[in-house]
C-alpha cells in the first residue's frame, strides 16, 4: 500500500478478496474540521476549514463519494463497502477548504 498526500491518511481494507465478495474499506484523514462556528478568544469566529469531499475510485471508476459538512468530527472517518470485481488499485481522494487535498491508494488482488 502506498500513500501520497499532504495530510496523514489511513486506509484499512483486505489485500485480497474472492471475486464478487463485498469488502469493507475504512478510511481516515487527519484534519481539524474547523466548523466555522467556534468563537476565538479574541472574539470573532474561527473561519471554516473542513474536508468537503471524499471520492473512492476503483480502477479509475468512481464507486463511492461523500460530501462532508462541519458536523463531521475531526479526523473524518468514512467507512463503506465495495464489490471485489477485479484485481487492481483503489484510489482515495479528499479535498476541502483552503485548497486541502490528500490522497491514498491501495491495491486489491481478486482471486
Amino acid at each position: 500500500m502506498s500513500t501520497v498526500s499532504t495530510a496523514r491518511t489511513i486506509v484499512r481494507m483486505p489485500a485480497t478478496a474472492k471475486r464478487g465478495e463485498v469488502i469493507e474499506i475504512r478510511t481516515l484523514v487527519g484534519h481539524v474540521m474547523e466548523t466555522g462556528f467556534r468563537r476565538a478568544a479574541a472574539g470573532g469566529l474561527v473561519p471554516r476549514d473542513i474536508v468537503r469531499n471524499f471520492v473512492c475510485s476503483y480502477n479509475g471508476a468512481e464507486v463511492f463519494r461523500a460530501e462532508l459538512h462541519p458536523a463531521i468530527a475531526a479526523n473524518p472517518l468514512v467507512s463503506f463497502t465495495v464489490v471485489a470485481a477485479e484485481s487492481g488499485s483503489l484510489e482515495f481522494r479528499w479535498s476541502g477548504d483552503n485548497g486541502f487535498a490528500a490522497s491514498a491508494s491501495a491495491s486489491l488482488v481478486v482471486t
Partner: protein
Amino acid sequence: MTTRRQFLVAAAGIGLASGARATPESMREAMRQVTGGAPVRQGRVKLDLPVLIDNGNAVALGVTVESPMTPADHVKAIHVFNERNPLPGVISVFLGPRAGRAQLHTRVRLADSQTVTAIAQLSDGSFWSDSVQVTVTLAACAEES
C-alpha cells in the same frame, strides 16, 4: 468613531450569528431540497446512533439500507440530517451497485439533544428514512478548545 447606534447594530448582528442554528424546520427544508418534495417513507433504513451520548464531539454513526444493490435496484444516495447543530446537513454519500452493500459509518458532532434522520434515495426514485432521538450530555463545538 463608533456611535451608539452603530454599536447596537453590530451587537445585534453578533447576537444573530451566535444564535443561528438548524431547527426542525430548517432540517425539513434541507430534506425537501434532497427529495424534491417526494414522499419519504419509514423503513428499509437503519440509523445506528447511541441514544445516550456523553461527548458530542465524536459520535459513531452508522447507516445501513436494505437493498439487493443490483443495477436494477440499488441505493443511489444516503443523506444524514440533524435538527440542532448550526447547519442541518451532516453527510451525503453517493453509491451504486458496485458498493455491494448500502452501508456507511462515520463519526459526527452533535451540538445538543435532538433527532437525527437518515434518508436513502433508491434507484426507483423512492425515499426511505429512519430517525433516532439522542440525548447529548456534553455538546460539541460550543466552546473553543
